[in-house]
């Protein structure tokens, strides 16, 4: 089996072969408005519509929750408070038992659901919800990470990774510098908000259509809340209108409330969060504060590092443990750090519980190290790219990560060299310096940053996947697997793998909705692992079937296995040729089982949580980006004008889909680091809960010149599906180059050696502050010079 896996995708004379830029399977439906999202499913007349009654305090004891007026309001069929839930009032994904479906005793964030109303229409539900009487006894809310850090409040214990003797190395380092960086959170802003539609079934069972990246977890949570076994609940998801990590854990609450309502009332129940409710009640990317103490030599080589990372986890753990871990694992980005200590606090705040978001903590770790490098370059007055290069992983002695994994395929030096050339980096840098010298208001900046991102769930047991394939007697194929489709093209890629395996046109393969009754106990479609794992599982199922067909053909026609060849919609059996359908039908008539499951578990990975060491990742994905920006030094406004990207997706399963992921991820990362700002009021209310106040990139923000290339030498050295690499998350972090280009532009108005210390998001306000600091560094230097 291994050598077959090892082969690069071979060109097959079929539609939709692996490695071809096949168009998204739903594209024609998307553009015609025919792709069905959950809110589009036709409803029976008696469907109930649900809304949550939300806390109006960020932290308080609930003295009284009186919903009697709500229960009797017009059109109301059911009101749920915590006591009405038949099973367990908890949906914490990792067993921390700190995340109630409905609050009891205390509320922990502004907007936390206290009760749920189901009524004949959404308007009636909303009107009814206003009739609740709630009395609170206010407690002091922890709204900022600083406050939580000062109070020592955490959702999970602090973790420390130590490697070598950082303190000693810091002492003896030729140069040493301390600094602080603050980076903001990020709202997913999937265009389709959270939604669940629960349909009551026989025996008190329930079928839930849920917009989730993790149907199995939703199934299990719904079952717990219902107090029923998992087999009483089926969860289905055909597609999501975007996920980005925001639908990894956050869908369970609405699914559970809708399911309980459906079971209790015998009526279908829909819980569709409008935009404001979604932004208020569901988690976001963790914002971080980092303090660092770095020692380095005259060339800028890091010799010792001590970093403290503090994350806003919100009121409960959710996936914050693994997210903060991944931030620690990515504090190196592509650099060999040697002796270091990373302390990671998982701070509890009275804000919504933060959750997975594309990159899953990795981006935060990487922003910190890139900022450290930037500081070093500035203090030494060296070019930042030179300092980056000198710190990259290298050969023996400089190829082991802080968590003791050897970097075997360090592609960055070569990729950086290639992009430096193709982007004309050096010449442009010079030209920009000239421009800045002559431009009074506008300044430009250019920066190159690398990405090295570890692929696999760091929770080892999650690295498993299943698939199910049926062959029907007409040769049509039904494909199902545990991965979910959120626009990333996973269904298509897996179908390409199966088409390739049977050597049939992809049109013969029916892509089907993810459904917990077809493939059970699946992992979330997350950690960029969707096609790696589900592709492998589907391939395994296809191979089982192919082996059965081959076995049948051998026995039936008296040939040997290597005389049975599947090629281009045909099956060659000795000197006979059949269509694929003919062989399948013959096999059926000869009582061959034409349904198979496939399973995959990621090999090689192991990892000791106690010592923070092992091989948490099967491999790394790499990328490099050069961004150029222009800023207005009077207003702080910025604009990204050109981007050059070289990104490694291994041997691509579908280059067009992969390029879409790279470009989309980049722009999303750019938004995180520039215009997307979450603002909380002092009392813990989220003030930015709609697109009118929360600004994701718009069309005009996409740089006019965008040169994107997939790494031509890309080929996974690990035995992944057709030697491809995961692509979902890594490109997001290419956008760190935008942030640094802004810092470069800001730095151009500062004195040599001035530390720009640009935080994120670099909103006009943040940039203008940095510009003013830079300008005053010149003033200070002048004053000092005069003395």
């Amino acid at each position, binding site marked *: 089996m291994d050598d077959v896996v090892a082969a690069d995708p071979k060109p097959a004379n079929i539609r939709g072969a692996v490695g071809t830029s096949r*168009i*998204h399977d*739903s*594209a*024609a439906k*998307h*553009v*015609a*408005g*025919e*792709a069905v*999202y959950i809110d589009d499913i036709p409803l029976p007349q008696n469907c109930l519509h649900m809304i949550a009654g939300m806390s109006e305090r960020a932290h308080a004891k609930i003295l009284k929750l009186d919903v009697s007026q709500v229960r009797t309001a017009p059109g109301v069929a059911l009101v749920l408070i915590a006591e009405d839930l038949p099973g367990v009032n908890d949906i914490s994904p990792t067993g921390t038992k700190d995340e109630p479906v409905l609050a009891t005793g205390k509320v922990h964030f502004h907007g936390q659901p206290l009760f749920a109303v189901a009524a004949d229409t959404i*308007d009636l539900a*909303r009107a009814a919800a206003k009739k609740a009487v709630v009395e609170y006894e206010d407690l002091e809310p922890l709204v900022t990470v600083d406050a939580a850090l000062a109070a020592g409040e955490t959702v999970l214990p602090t973790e420390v990774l130590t490697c070598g003797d950082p303190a000693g190395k810091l002492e003896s380092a030729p140069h040493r510098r301390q600094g602080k960086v603050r980076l903001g959170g990020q709202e997913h*802003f*999937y*265009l*389709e908000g959270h939604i669940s539609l629960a349909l009551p079934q026989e025996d008190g069972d329930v079928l839930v259509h849920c917009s989730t990246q993790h149907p199995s977890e939703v199934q299990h949570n719904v079952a717990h809340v219902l107090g029923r076994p998992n087999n009483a609940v089926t969860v289905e998801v055909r*597609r*999501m*209108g*975007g*996920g*980005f990590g925001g639908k990894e854990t956050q869908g369970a609450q609405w699914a559970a409330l809708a399911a309980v309502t459906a079971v209790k009332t015998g009526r279908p129940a829909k819980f569709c969060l*409008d*935009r404001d409710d979604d932004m208020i009640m569901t988690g976001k990317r963790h914002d971080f504060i980092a303090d660092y103490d770095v020692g380095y030599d005259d060339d800028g080589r890091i010799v010792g590092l001590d970093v403290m990372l503090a994350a806003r986890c919100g009121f409960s753990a959710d996936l914050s443990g693994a997210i903060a871990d991944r931030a620690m694992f990515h504090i190196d980005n592509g650099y060999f750090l040697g002796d270091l200590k990373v302390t990671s606090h998982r701070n509890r705040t009275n804000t919504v519980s933060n959750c997975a978001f594309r990159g899953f903590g990795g981006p935060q770790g990487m922003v910190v190290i890139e900022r450290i490098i930037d500081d070093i370059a500035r203090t030494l007055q060296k070019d930042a790219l030179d300092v980056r290069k000198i710190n990259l992983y290298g050969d023996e002695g400089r190829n082991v990560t802080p968590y003791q994994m050897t970097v075997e395929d360090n592609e960055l030096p070569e990729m950086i060299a290639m992009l430096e050339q193709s982007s004309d980096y050096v010449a442009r840098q010079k030209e920009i310096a000239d421009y800045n010298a002559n431009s*009074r*208001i506008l300044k430009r900046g250019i920066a190159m940053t690398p990405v090295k991102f570890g692929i696999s769930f760091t929770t080892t047991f999650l690295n498993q996947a299943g698939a199910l394939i049926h062959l029907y007697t007409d040769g049509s194929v039904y494909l199902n697997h545990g991965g979910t489709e*959120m*626009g990333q*093209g996973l269904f298509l890629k897996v179908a390409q793998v199966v088409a390739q395996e049977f050597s049939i046109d992809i049109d013969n393969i029916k892509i089907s909705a993810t459904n917990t009754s077809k493939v059970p106990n699946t992992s979330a479609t997350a950690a960029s692992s969707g096609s790696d794992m589900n592709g492998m599982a589907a391939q395994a199922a296809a191979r089982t079937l192919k082996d059965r067909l081959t076995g049948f053909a051998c026995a039936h026609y008296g040939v040997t296995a290597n005389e049975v060849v599947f090629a281009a919609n045909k099956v060659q059996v000795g000197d006979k040729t059949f269509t694929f359908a003919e062989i399948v039908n013959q096999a059926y008539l000869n009582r061959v089982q034409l349904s198979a499951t496939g399973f995959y578990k990621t090999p090689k990975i192991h990892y000791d949580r106690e010592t923070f060491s092992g091989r948490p990742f099967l491999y790394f994905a790499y990328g490099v980006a050069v961004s150029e920006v*222009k800023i*207005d030094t*009077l*207003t*702080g*406004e910025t*604009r990204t004008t050109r981007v050059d990207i070289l990104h490694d997706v291994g041997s691509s399963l579908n280059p*067009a*889909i992969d390029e879409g992921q790279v470009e*989309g*991820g*980049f*722009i999303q990362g750019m938004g995180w680091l520039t215009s997307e*700002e979450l*603002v909380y009021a002092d009392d813990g209310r989220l*003030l*930015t809960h*709609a*697109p*009118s*106040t929360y600004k*994701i*990139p*718009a*069309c*005009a*923000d*996409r740089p006019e010149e965008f040169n994107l290339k997939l790494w031509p030498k890309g080929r996974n050295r690990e035995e992944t599906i057709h030697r491809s690499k995961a692509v979902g998350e890594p490109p997001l972090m290419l956008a760190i180059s935008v942030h640094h280009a802004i810092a470069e532009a800001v730095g151009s108005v500062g004195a040599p050696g001035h530390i720009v210390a640009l935080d994120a998001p670099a909103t*006009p306000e943040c940039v203008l502050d940095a510009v003013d600091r830079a300008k005053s560094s010149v003033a200070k230097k002048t004053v000092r010079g005069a003395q």
Partner: protein
Amino acid sequence: MRSSVNFLLGDEPRELTDIDPTMTVLRYLREVEGRVGSKEGCAEGDCGACTVVLAEVQGDALTYRAVNACIQFVPTLEGKQLLTVEDLKASDGALHPVQQSMVDNHGSQCGFCTPGFVMSLHALYQQGGAQDRLEIDNALAGNLCRCTGYGPIVAAARAMTDYDAPAEGDMPVAEVIAHLKGLQEGDGVSLEWRGRKYFAPRSLEALAAIYKHHTEANILAGGTDIGLWVTKQHRRLQTVIYIGDVAELDTLEVVDGVLQIGAGVTYERALETICEHFPEFGEVMRRIGSTQIRNAGTIGGNVANGSPIGDSPPVLIALGARLVLRCGPDVREMALEDFFVDYGKQDRQPGEFVERIDVPLAAPDVMFRSYKISKRFDQDITAALGAFAVTLDDSGNVASARICFGGMAATPKRATATEAALLGQPWTEETMQAAAEHMATDYAPLTDMRASADYRMKVSKNLLTKFWLETTDETLESRLVGVAVNG
């Protein structure tokens, strides 16, 4: 007046009598018509997932404009053709060029925003398409996509006109025009639904009379503010008077050196004229909302709404605009700045409405600039907006100065102390810097989610600097977006 709403949904005539007058078009489509292709992504006109196209008769042709179905009320469809994503495919199932181009260029990923993009592109296609990036950005500024990063969509926009034109639909354009023209006869619409009322008069006189009688009514122009009262604040409006069908309010002409803008004129309709006479105002207007918002929203509504962060009032005040108000047959006029009394309070009597805004064409020697500051360039609400109009006398001293800011006070407000500090002074950097210090007398801005008070103050001073630099150095490159108008 007719007591039903008549329009075409695609090719099919609709006549609605039993309809909530403030039901949104999106809800109507999804819940009444079962057309679920148009999506709700925000219900506040910001994301564009609900974009639909309205076709209207203008002369002997149809004009097409994209609007946000989520904040438009159903009765305003009267006399129009409503096109949704379901209307684009040919009867043989062939995709429309816009759709095919989106498919071929990988313009969709999750697909949820896609119908909205398709409809915005469809409107652009009907206008002949565009290759220029700025034009495409303008057409798509009101559509958010979180997956693609927009590149493939821009490519689709550029390529869509390369495909063969689609076959004419079941109802030929001529027939649509004839049908819509038929609907325009009569004197408007008057609905009553469960005690709530809706009027859509067609003449100024009728409007004035109805409003005088129903002083409790809300005047509805483009609905880009009012729509949100319903979808976001869940307010129930008792009486609504729609002014979009009043022909006399749709005037846009220069009379005796004054540009008269009727209260019913949408931004999009005004844009070309504004750009011609006031290019700086044009650039601000290009950045008000999005194409969908500008296709519906009016300058009159922007003024009447009285928000301190409305974009046109500060610019209009700096330009010396005057407001014409009408109550029944009575007309009065005032300087625009006098209209804004306090936060949420304007000088408008019961039954009185905005009829027109008069903007004197600037003399050639006026130095005029306006700057909008927001977190994002396109479709964002202003943090601070500064408009500056200064003239110099023969010796180069400041002869007149009108400076007005939005986002800096409870109303759009002139910087009178700053203006005074400039008057009579030579137009130098020292003068400008000294004057900038008076901004702190003129304004005490707030901190909110858009910006801090500090930033607002700092940037306002800096905008004065920018204004001075731009007016004294013709070669200066000073703008990141749009059209810099220098010299």
